[in-house]
């Protein structure tokens, strides 16, 4: 008697064998990961490994169908495995509750698999797995969704473009003076409110000052004296002062919403073309007549815009709660799902919006913006995960030319396509700073101000997505950054120029874990405006123009994406209307085309 098999009978027998004998790694057990695992299990795959560092949250349950309410708080990878086994106990499935970027998973780990299926939600991990698969020369199927949209893409070394062949736009960033002095959109006030949270309760970050910025070039014309005051009107740190007054809400309120605003009004140049803010006293706010707060259901609290008096009372209540939470800790970490932290930001952002005559936002809408939430639905994940496994069959059959990128788009009245497949594979970008041979980039930065540790954390790790870089200054053969502990820590607080890095210096960077070597040419660059990025990374500057004309369309229209979201990945399609330019997304195809080189870094976390 022949045993029935779940492997699709339409596949050629050689492919059926490969499916039965292949070893698959699924990276991520979230929205797409759950669907992919189910499809693999029901398609006769026998040997599956799953890695995810996350634990289950209630808001996952509307789509991550291998999890249930009783699983909340448990590791996704472990529960996903159990759930698949409860369906089919014969499958060999191994779970890792861990980060895929951990040093435990080197190139040899990846080499054990016939195919890797990415189901990730952030760019850093995607870049890392991309490099690991290039280094191990294992085919990778990359996928993502954002709301009604999604994408499936095969990455195969030398044959297709890699995840990093196209420029990924950074998160939207706002100049410090817009946040501190001249907000004009709700998001500016929300960013300010998050900074205020961090100033009062969070980890110290000088880039998150909330007080008026007297260095604002717009204001400066008439305020010549300000340059001596280093941009802050109070010398005492906000944190110290708050502790001195024991977080007395009325006093905090008065400083941030009355005194600071009054000070801003003295910077008259700012208000010549803008509506001036109106200082708000604690008494005015508390006694402000708003709509009655009779209803106490979810929609009233979450969906309605709070009255000013409600904002003031929430501000006061949450300050007291957070003060208590802070006791015995050195700082709090802001979390959108922490009620007092989220309430505080909603209240503070809306009070500031009121002062600046900016549209106010509900707690629900504020949470989307403050928490960078990308909406996610089961149907889009199901479609994309289905296509991932259909592509996996063809990859195993070594028919990779039949695996062009497929886009899921929301149905529009102007297009017949819901699922749109490219005609051909997209060839590797010959200038890619990751997958080409001997890759190089130019980094523009100020060698006289940037510290070695900033170069490591912001340029190499955060921007270039390295995990454990070693850096050698060419010519001098001196090791400036080492991934070994204790070797180069003494350099950390030195400026780049102090260790011999100057305009024209060449750095050889090697990430051993990613098997990735990169040559960086340093060009001295100074900000001309405060809102300029502190550094820029470009490929070969001369090649940029050529690339744009030959390759610009393919690379330009593809995607823009945001970090720290659910199943994220946003496709911006050329003929799409303004709809795809989600304010959260911070990028549009048009912007990208106009600005292909301006792949700037963001220092302000929205």
């Amino acid at each position, binding site marked *: 008697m022949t045993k029935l098999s*779940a492997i699709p009978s339409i596949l050629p027998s050689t492919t059926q064998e490969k499916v039965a004998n292949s070893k698959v790694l699924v990276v991520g057990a979230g929205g797409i990961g759950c669907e992919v695992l189910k499809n693999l299990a029901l398609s006769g795959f026998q040997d599956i490994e799953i890695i995810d560092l996350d634990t289950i949250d209630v808001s996952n349950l509307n789509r991550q169908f291998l999890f249930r309410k009783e699983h909340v708080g448990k590791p996704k990878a472990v529960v996903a495995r159990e759930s698949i086994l409860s369906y089919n106990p014969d499958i060999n499935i191994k779970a890792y509750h861990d980060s895929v970027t951990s040093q435990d998973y080197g190139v040899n780990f990846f080499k054990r698999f016939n195919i890797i299926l990415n189901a990730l939600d952030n760019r850093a991990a995607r870049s890392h797995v991309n490099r690991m698969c290039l280094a191990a020369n294992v085919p990778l199927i990359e996928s993502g969704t954002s709301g009604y949209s999604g994408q499936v893409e095969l990455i195969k070394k030398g044959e297709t473009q890699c995840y990093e062949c196209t420029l990924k736009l950074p998160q939207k960033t706002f100049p410090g003076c817009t946040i501190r002095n001249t907000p004009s959109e709700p998001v500016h006030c929300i960013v300010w409110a998050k900074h205020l949270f961090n100033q009062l309760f969070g980890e110290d970050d000088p880039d998150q000052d909330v007080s008026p910025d007297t260095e604002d070039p717009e204001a400066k014309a008439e305020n010549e004296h300000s340059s001596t005051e280093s941009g802050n009107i109070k010398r005492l740190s906000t944190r110290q002062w708050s502790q001195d007054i024991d977080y007395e809400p009325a006093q905090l309120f008065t400083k941030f919403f009355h005194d600071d605003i009054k000070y801003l009004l003295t910077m008259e140049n700012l208000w010549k073309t803008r509506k001036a803010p109106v200082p708000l006293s604690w008494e005015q706010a508390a006694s402000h007549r708003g709509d009655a707060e009779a209803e106490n259901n979810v929609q009233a609290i979450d969906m309605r815009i709070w009255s000013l008096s409600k904002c003031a009372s929430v501000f006061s209540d949450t300050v007291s709660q957070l003060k208590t939470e802070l006791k015995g800790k050195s700082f709090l970490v802001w979390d959108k799902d922490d009620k007092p932290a989220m309430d505080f930001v909603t209240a503070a952002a809306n009070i500031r919006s009121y002062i600046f005559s900016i549209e106010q936002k509900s707690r629900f809408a504020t949470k989307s913006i403050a928490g960078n939430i990308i909406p996610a639905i089961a149907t889009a994940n199901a479609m994309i995960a289905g*296509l991932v496994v259909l592509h996996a069959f063809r990859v195993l059959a070594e028919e990779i030319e039949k695996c062009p990128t497929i886009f899921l788009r929301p149905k529009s009245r102007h297009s017949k396509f819901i699922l749109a497949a490219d005609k051909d594979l997209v060839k590797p970008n010959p200038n890619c700073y990751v997958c080409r041979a001997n890759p190089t980039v130019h980094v523009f930065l100020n060698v006289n101000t940037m510290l070695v540790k900033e170069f490591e954390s912001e340029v190499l790790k955060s921007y270039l997505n390295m995990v454990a870089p070693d850096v050698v200054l060419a010519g001098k053969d001196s090791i400036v950054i080492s991934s070994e502990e204790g070797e180069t820590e003494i350099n950390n607080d030195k400026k780049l120029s102090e260790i011999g890095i100057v305009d024209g210096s060449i750095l050889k960077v090697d990430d051993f874990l990613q098997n990735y070597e990169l040559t960086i040419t340093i060009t001295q660059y100074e900000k001309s405006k405060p809102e300029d990025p502190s550094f820029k990374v470009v490929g070969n500057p001369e090649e940029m123009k050529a690339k744009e004309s030959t390759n610009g369309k393919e690379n330009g229209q593809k995607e823009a994406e945001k970090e720290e979201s*659910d199943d994220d990945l946003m496709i911006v399609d050329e003929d799409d209307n303004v709809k795809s330019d989600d304010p959260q997304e911070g990028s549009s195809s048009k912007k990208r085309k106009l600005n292909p080189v301006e792949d700037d870094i963001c220092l302000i976390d929205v």
Partner: protein
Amino acid sequence: MGETQLSAVEAELYDRQIRLWGIESQQKLRAANVLLIGIRGLGSEIAKNILLSGINSLTILDDGVVTEEELLKNFLLSRSSVGKKIAEEVMVKAQALNPLVKIVSDTEAVGKKDMDFFEKFTIVIATGIKTDLLLKIDKACHSKNVKFICGDVFGTFGYSISDFQEHKYIEEQIQLKGKKRDHKGEEKQTVKVENTINYPELKKVVILPNSKQSIEGIKKKKRRNVLFFVMLTLIEFRNRHNRNPSITTKNEDLKSLQEIKSEIFQVYDIDPAKVNDDIFDLIFGEVVPACAAVGGVIAQEVIKAVSQKEVPIHNVFLFDPITYNGTEECVGA
């Protein structure tokens, strides 16, 4: 708390989708009573997606019995299910997907139902049934303003056909407020636009050889997606053989498919060379990942039909088993 108010539990559970389609859509979903005919490979995918979306009730109608083969393709079943009624066996795992939805299992044959059975639903989804019955159910739904959608997966080919009658829906468009300012201050506003689509009855869409319906409406459109005629061929195969093509009888089924294809292509005056016969090698069995893709599309159309939001497919959806393109084809309107 009123019936239409979402509870805190629901708001938390459905947070990520409410952020996409809004609270009004969620409330409409919450009031929807859905009938799903057929809970096999494709049906189980549709059931999963719409249960997760948070409808009020789901009635699962299927008189079939679980086979070993079905067990391999359906994640709502367990090993102990073999030999038992499928509509009952899926209950435990279906309910676990969303404890807030009322699920009803109905093991009667769909052909035995009175036509007024279908009236009580907001939408009827039909998979795996023959055309004569399909047209009857659609007629009953159409006359009572019950939304209707049907679909199938054959191998890696899939389709759906919607009949949402006179369907009004809201589309959110983002428009720029006035002139563009500098790049920082591009102000946008969301505008809700209402549109209407008039769906044709199914009998004007699924017109097979020997039908009394006129095919002129379908024929007159040039550059029709030929997969539409592949769909008709597969539907007609099921009508004639009372089953789907099976890999165990592959050769004779391929022969029958080619015969039906040439009849249909002749009726519609289509060059048979436009469809390579190799395509029929891909239509055996219900390939699970194809069910996932097509089941995702159908469930999304159900959500659009119920919430009356976003542009729905008008009216046929075709999933290409070779390119994996998924496209709309407007037929019979």
